[in-house]
């Protein structure tokens, strides 16, 4: 049977990653920014798993596992921060959180 070529995985990963970063730039809603982050991470996972299937190793899958776990933690904390911000400032869009700007 015909294997999926490595390039396919990688191109898909690339496109997805680019979309994720683009979403981070473009979106105003804080939660939406986080969601774009998840997208990018998933893209990376695809790349790992794809390379893994080509090489016949499982190390990539283990790393993808780790990434999933950490992404979960990161999502939890990020959302917690968003909730705290909302409680404090009653804002949910990033353009009102420019205090660190000069």
């Amino acid at each position, binding site marked *: 049977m015909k294997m999926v070529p490595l390039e396919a995985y990688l191109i898909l990963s690339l496109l997805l990653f680019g979309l994720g970063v683009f979403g981070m*730039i473009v979106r105003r809603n804080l939660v939406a*920014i986080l969601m774009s982050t998840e997208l990018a991470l998933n893209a990376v996972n695809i790349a790992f798993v794809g390379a893994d299937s080509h090489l016949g190793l499982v190390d990539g899958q283990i790393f993808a596992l780790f990434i999933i776990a950490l992404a979960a933690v990161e999502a939890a904390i990020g959302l917690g921060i968003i909730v705290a911000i909302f409680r404090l400032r009653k804002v949910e869009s*990033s353009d009102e*959180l*420019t205090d*660190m700007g*000069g």
Partner: protein
Amino acid sequence: MEVLIILFPLLAFLLVGLFGRRLGDLPSAIIAVLGSTLSFIFSIPALLKALNSPFSVKLYDFISFGTYTLTLGLYFDPLSAITTSLVCLVSTLIFIYSIGYMESLFGQWTYKFYAYLSLFLFSMLLIVLSDNLLGMFFGWEGVGLASYLLIGYFHQQKYATNSAFEAFIMNRIGDWLYLFGIFSIFYLFGSLNLLEIFSKVKEIDPNLLGLAVLLLFGGAVGKSGQVPLHTWLPNAMAGPTPVSALLHSSTMVAAGVYMVARLYPVFESAPQGLKVVALIGGLTALFASLAATSHTDIKKIIAFSTMSQLGLMFLALGIGDKSSAMFHLTTHAFFKALLFLSAGSIIHAFHHHARDIYEVGGLKKHMPITYATFFVGALALAGVFPFAGFWSKDLIIASSYEAGFGLGVFVSFVSFLTAYYIFREGFVMFYGPERHKGHFEEEPHEAPSVMVVPMVVLAIGSAVVGFFEGWYMSALEDNKEMHLDIAISSVAIALLGIGLAYLVFVKRSLDPEKLYQSLKPVHTTFREQFFTERLYHKGLAKGYMELSKGLFLAGDRFLIDGFINLLNFLYFRVVKFLWVKLDIYTLDLFVNGVAKFSFRFGRKASLIQTGLLNNYVAFLLFGLFVLLGIIIYFMG
């Protein structure tokens, strides 16, 4: 050996000048007297030696330049030797006199007085004894300096210091002419030595020589107080009486006459010069005697008398009679010094307060010795037989009659005036009411013996010296006959003068007060010395001051200060301009520009930090893009 003659006064000057403060006044006086006495003593053998054969004593070489050497030396011939002894003798007597006169000032640094006197004597001897014009000039200057110091001795009085200035400046004018005379002599003769000059005198063009002679005579005019450099002599009476006696009657002012006599061979070869000498001499003689008739200051009358007699001496020199002039100089030294010392005795009697002849009177019974000596001097001055003045003045009158009848009459008229004014002074002071009673507190008393003795000695001299005429003339190799008719007429004229004074002032046949009022304009003119003094003081001196001030304002203030200020101003302008251009426009611009640029750039750059999360992610993307680019570049 002969050098000691001039060294004694010099030594006295140095000793008293340097150590007088420590020595004290009286010891200083004694040192001065000693110096003078020793010079006199040593001059006698030199005189005797010189009478036989003149000799020179070389002192030392002064400066040598190429072909000629300036030297200092002494020359003893009858003329200089006799004059030396005369000067030393008179100086000694006056020094002794001054101990008494200045006694009241002892304790006030009077040693200075004796130092100056010794300096004067040294310089005078240099003039008399020098064998070349340079040494004579040194002495010339020296006596001028001593005169200045001594006239201004009472330096707290403004009149005295002004008179000292006047004397010195007029002397200076004369000295300036004299110096040019010396230059011309050197130019013409190539030497300053007297003997060399005398030997070459025939070879020089008389016209050029005439010019040199006039310049030399200019010095004599200044030194002897002849017209037109005469106004200082009456004012020099501001000095102490010994000074007036020594410098301004017998010795210093006689230096002019001596110089002409000394250089007589030169003068003789330039007849035009001699004419000028006679002219000025005669003019001064008349002028001064007219002034003397109208003055009332005790010493000024005698000063004018000096001026007049010197004029007669120059007149004599001018008409060719050197020996008469020198003999008159010799006798004049005696009786003029005597007259001054007598006047000084009177002034001293009133503790230096007496000034005017009308302030005193009837002193005959209070001061008999002074009375006697004064009249001896007066008779000698008037030229009455057998006193000294008769012999010498008679010679001059005779010579002038020989030169021209008019000249003889002129000189006779001057003698008449001379007799009149001196006896006027004598009669007013010694006869008549005692005007001093109301004026001064002091009772006049005779002078102390230290003053009286010199006066008596001089009186004896004034009486006796005349008899040495024959010896003197033969010493100077000039034999004169006595003209009896001239002798009688001159004595008669003198007696006429005396008689007139007697009538007016003693007998009161003609009331002096009425005469005074009626002749007021005339005698005011005489008194003001034909307004020459006014002219000089107000016209020349003041005018010169104004000119100087004007030049100062124009030149110094305006030009120089203005120039400096302009430079200053410009300098500041330039500096300011440079500062503005360089500093403000370039440096500051640069420095400020950097600061401004950094600031603005920083502010613009800080716009990157929006604080917006999304923007930061965009930058991350951009960075990733750049990094990958770099990797590709290096990979490919």
